Every structure is written in structure tokens, then in C-alpha cells.
């Protein structure tokens, strides 16, 4: 599947078809993240059931503590 993540065009393996799986794919499942899909912020409870489709534009922001 072809998607854009944080502005970059990316080809995802076919098995990665939901937001939860995408976060696991990037090892972000334990992190506090905000996910925007096609300019809509997703409620965290919706990550598992939100299905990705070809051409989706996804922004993933994870919080870090350093400074």
C-alpha cells in the first residue's frame, strides 16, 4: 500500500492495514502518540479499528521527554 507518513511517500507491507499495526511497525505502540489521518485527529480508542487505504496521508507525532 502506498501512503504518505509525515510527508514522505512510503510503501507499506500488505499486512499493515490498520493504524495500530502501523504504530507497531514503527515500534511506537508503547509511546504516547497523536495520529492524524487525512487531516483528522484520531481518537486513541479508534487506532485498532481504523483501516488504512491507498493514498492515505498520515502524520504521527510522538512525545519525547529530553531537552
Amino acid at each position, binding site marked *: 500500500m502506498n501512503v504518505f507518513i509525515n*510527508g514522505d511517500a512510503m510503501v507499506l507491507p500488505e499486512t499493515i492495514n490498520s493504524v495500530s499495526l502501523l504504530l507497531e511497525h514503527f515500534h511506537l505502540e508503547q509511546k*504516547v502518540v497523536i495520529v492524524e489521518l487525512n487531516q483528522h*485527529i484520531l481518537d486513541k480508542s479508534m487506532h485498532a479499528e481504523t483501516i488504512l487505504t491507498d493514498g492515505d496521508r498520515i502524520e504521527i507525532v510522538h512525545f*519525547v*521527554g*529530553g531537552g
Partner: protein
Amino acid sequence: MSERYSRQMLFPPIGKEGQKKLREKHALIIGAGALGAANAETLTRAGVGKLTIADRDYVEWSNLQRQQLYCEEDAVRKVPKAIAAAKRLKAINSEVQIFPRIMDVGVQEMEELIEDVDLIIDSTDNFDIRFLINDISQKHRIPWIYGGCVGSYGLSYTILPGVTPCLNCLMDKLPLGGATCDTAGVIQPAIQMVAAHQSAEALKILAENLESLRATLISFDVWKNQFSSVNVSSLRNPQCLSCGTKPIYPFLDYRIQTKTSLLCGRDTVQIRPSALQDMDVAYLEKSLVSQGINVESNPYLLSFSINDARVVVFKDGRVLVHGVRDILQAKNLYHRFLG
């Protein structure tokens, strides 16, 4: 106003009026590490009226690669960061009133620090303190600017009480065991990018140009060449315990404050006595020396080594124990030498 600010006043959104407003303002920077040093230098050069900079730590060699206000001598002499920062900032711009505070900022300290303050800039390295900043900001209606950075990645968001979501709305839980600068490293350009976003927003707030604020959560990776700007206004939660319609400011509850904490993943434990009070450091030094222990000291702290651990005692009674893996080992050393 002097030639010093001429280029900034030529910039129309600031102008002479903005410069005057900036001069009347008081900014509080919590943390004098990499982000704190960068933000403090920008605001000092820009001519803010007053700048308070609070930090609990002292300068070490590993800081010099990115903490732009410090030099080798500061690391050799273990100068507290607040003091070393103030010295450098005063040399940069003697017109700015700089108030250095060597302290571990908790609830009580925060209530005292925010008096007369117009803006808080987060330059800390952990979320415990950020949630405290977030609650105090909501309680006293003072804006604050979050910044975080690890590796080549960073992010920032400006929180305006009554306008934007707060940190408690954006993050539904405290992240545990995340990467830190001490485990994953950090590079100076990522720090500069976060600080640039923070201090640009700070200038807008202090010069009262609020309509130019960014209003999005930005994040970027300067190594992977990614940038993202997300509108998070829909996450403002009316039921939020920090900023909702019935706030209880949960993070200002003194009972949840820890007295010992592991410092940003670097084998260091901080022990903070329940009541901070000035410590007789000279007496302690004498007694350690009489036990044949080699002690190093400066007017703000003393340090000594025991086996693989190094103990640093600040005048306010706080102790850092380096080179230990757990809190128990640190407490043992603490009680052995400090009662």
C-alpha cells in the same frame, strides 16, 4: 531604544512597540540544559525585561557538546547550571535582569517562581515536571511552551490557558521508560530547531503578537528530513482535570511528589529531603576530610567519591548520587554520610 535592538525593531511584527513590550516582560525558563541555554540566550539577546532560570544540576563535560552557555571551566569547577548560565547571559546583555535559581522545582518552588511571570518556557527533561508546569499554568493563566528533543527528533507546542488544549488533553498518560538524551543521544541541530520554535513563539507572546502564534503541534526529524505540523485543537477536553470546566489541578497535589527520583537515565539518583534547608556544607566537608575522604567543593556544592559512586551535596540539602543503579543503594550512601 539603543542600536542593540535596531534589527529586531526593523522587523515590522515587533517594531518599536513590540520591543517596548518585550522589555516589560518576565520570562521563566525551567531547566538550564540544552533547550534552556538556547532559549535563554535568544531571549536575553532579544532584550526581555527579566529572565528567571531555574535548574537543579551542575555543568558536566557531557553537556558541552550542546549546552551553548557553558564552557570547559564550568565543567571543571562543577558550577551549577543556573549560575554558569546567569554569568554568561549577563555578559551577553547586561540590560536584562537575570535571576538564577539553583533548585529542584516542585510544587512549592513553582508557586514561588511564577510570581510576576508572563510566560513559562519548558526546557526540562522529564514529564513529571511538565505536568506540574501544565497545572500551574492553568491555575494562574500563564501560557507555557512545551519542547522535547531526543536524537535528531524534536517537537513543540504552545499552550494558552482558555484557548488551546493543555498537555493533559494531548497526552492521556505519562510515558514510561521512553528514550532519553542519555540513552539515545541527542544532536545540537535538533535542540536548536526545537529552541528556535519555542523562542519564536515566546517572542510573539512577549511582544503581544498573539495572532501570529502557530497553533499547531509541530514535530520534525532533522536527520530523516521529516516535518509535520498538526492541528490538535479538537483534542481540547472539557472534562480535562487540568483545564476543563471543573479543574482540580491533579499534579499540584504535594502528596504525589516523589522525594527520590532517577535523573534522566544516567545512573543518577536525586534525594530531596522533605524540607529543604540550608546545609552546613563546610561542616560536612570537615567531617568527610577527617575520615580521609577526598572532597571537592565550590560555593554551591561539594562532591566526593565512594567506591564507584560519586555523591554531590547541594547547599539546599539536595543530594545527587551518581554511579548507582537503584534508589536503595543511593539512599544507603545518603544515610551513611548525611544522616
